[in-house]
């Protein structure tokens, strides 16, 4: 069991990411490691999300390698770029793919644009 993944999903309630209330349905991630696969099921409804370990049917299923998935969860990689370079396989309802992006943290080292204002005469 991946500690990164476990911590990410366990902390979802506390982080309470903003999620469009129009997103409704399920996404399953089949996260592949050398010797096993971990399955995570996400249920989106009414602006919220619940996660559990489950292999149940979902509207959308994404198959992804474990190390890449963990990089996404740590803000070290990008979902859509990984998809475009064929590192993720997605089947089912594609509208559920961007839903997952609302859960991801800032990327490592990211700055607020206001940080670029420091030192200029106009900044307040």
């Amino acid at each position, binding site marked *: 069991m991946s500690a990164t993944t476990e911590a990410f999903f366990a902390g979802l309630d506390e982080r309470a990411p903003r999620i469009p209330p129009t997103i409704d349905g399920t996404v399953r991630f089949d996260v592949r490691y050398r010797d096993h696969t971990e399955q995570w099921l996400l249920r989106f409804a009414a*602006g919220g999300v619940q996660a559990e370990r489950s292999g149940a049917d979902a509207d959308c299923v994404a198959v992804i390698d474990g190390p890449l998935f963990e990089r996404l969860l740590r803000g070290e990689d*990008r979902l859509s770029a990984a998809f475009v370079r064929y590192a993720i396989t997605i089947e089912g*309802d594609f509208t559920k793919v961007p839903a997952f*992006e609302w859960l991801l943290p800032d990327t490592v080292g990211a700055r607020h*644009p206001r940080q670029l204002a420091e030192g200029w005469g106009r900044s307040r």
Partner: protein
Amino acid sequence: MRNLNYTSILDGMMFMISDGRGDILPSAELPTGLFAFDMRVLSTWDLTVNGERLTALSVDDLQYFESRYFLVPGEPTHYVDANLSVIRQRSVGGGLFLEQLTVLNHQEVPVDLRIRLDIGTDFADITEIADVQKKGKLSVAVEDGTLHLLYQRDNQRREVVVCSSADAAIDDHGMTFEIQVGPHDAWNTTFQVVLWSRGAEGRDIREAVPTYDTPAKVEMGKALDEWLADAPTLTCDSASLDQAYRRSLTDLAALRFRGNTRGEMIFAAGLPWLMGNFGRDAVITCLQALPFAPQLTPGVLHTLADAQGSRLDDFAEEEPGKILQEFRYGERAGYEEIAACPYYGGADTTPLFVVLLDEYERWTGDADLVRELEFHARLALDWIDAYGDIMGDGYIWYACRNERLGVRNQGWKDSADAISYSDGRLPVGPRATCELQGYAYDAKRRGARLARRFWDDAAYADRLDREAAELKRRFNQEFWIPDGRYYALGMDADGNLIDACASNMGHLLWSGIADRDKARHVVDHLMSRRLFSGWGIRTLAEGDGRYSPVGYHNGTIWPFDNSLIALGMRRYGFDEEAAKVAGAMIEAAQFFDGRLPGAFTGYDRALTKYPVQFPAACSPHAWSAGAVLMFLRSMLGLDPKGEHLIVRPHLPRDIGRIELLDIPGRWGLVDAFGRGH
């Protein structure tokens, strides 16, 4: 592409640019080849008969996705042997390229021929065409009577499969046909080229996309007919306007493609350099097309909302609520060798998203979409203050956070030297260009209307209205240059005005942020000889430090820019000036076969007599096609008011009569008439 030596066909994300014979050979001028999703699928497609190249007698553009070449053997300098002719008819569509090759023998005796088609590809990404350096491995295989061109990088595998309906001798570099054609007989074969892209699971990635389909040519023709039939019918005296209108509608149809997530139609920004989803271009094109094809808008808004920023990311220049500027699907985008997957480096896309949502409702009465996208529109409005306002002073600013691959200027004038002081110096650090403030003002006003009418939130509406009024007051004080009587192009990070005299201030009329008493002076500048060339309003005024008639954002003329300005002039009651701009542009269109390019040069009309082409411009270009539609709107004075369409024509003097029938909207279908005065 408007270059008589080249021809192109296009269907959404797939296009082919070849020479006038239909051959693909290396070119320094243009990215010749067959491309799909930014990848070159064919870089060699070279036909010879008995070792000789062919000469084109004529080329027919049958549809935007189909063309036909009539050819005879021999170089044009030689005596042309009319005993043989060759017809190549080709199309792109549904992820396929098809070419039917026909050889006709006009003689009384049979003829033995060696037909050779050289075939190959370099798998170049369109963004690296000048210097192709592939990181993966290329190979070729001949299997089961088909030619396979392969590219492998990590798990990613691209395979171009070429086959011929007639038997061919196939080698690694092409196909050869040793044939005999009888007296007055014909021989033919059909080539099919398909690109397979396989991912980690070894499956075609498109199999996973539920909306993937392969419309036959007939269906594509039918879809185009329906698209044209759904648009309002134009009858007019001006042949140039008539041609430009038809061309524009067809070009918009050609640039449409099915978005990945929802399968709704969105469109590419321009051939060949901007084949992807570009937020700014898509939103502005939708705004231009609202009176003609409002059905384009929901797909674009949905697609942009799906990819709305949700976090901070310096590489992508993403912030919560921000609307993307660029999404490309090529190899270099996926591997982040360019920032485009997606890239959010645009400070205007987010307010413009709100402007489009409101304007769409005003035309169509589609309140459901306004309610559905409330979350996204509010988040976009929040972005203006939380992330756009870098300096904390109430204006929208931008500053590039991806120093290596990002765009320094993040408005529509996005080249590195596009924003300058009048003496030519370039600002450093964050900057606030004037048109962004207009967009923010307009977005807040429109957001207030949506909040009051549809979101049941009067307090929020009042707040937005207050903020908009305050922004307008301060902007008119702080961006106005009293001595020159114009709005500065922008403000630099120390609070100094970036004082170039540029077309950007015309957008302030479109957004409504300009004070009434200042608008007169703005229009005088826009129509002065420094900015108005006789064909249109230049991006930068003659006499400014960086001005050049061939400066990409520093002197050339952009039809889309002019279309927003003309509509803005009408908003402030400058009907005569708006008509003059629209009239000049419609006249200019005839020199481009009705297809306004992305930009053309800023030479004075008296000097050249015709608008001089700008070599690197995209064509067709979505928002230039849209510009023709917006000029029609501004000439006829079309504007929704409640459940009605107001028609207040003011036409250029010499354009004659214009009738636009069946304009769709919340009123059903309405006709508009006007006559040049």
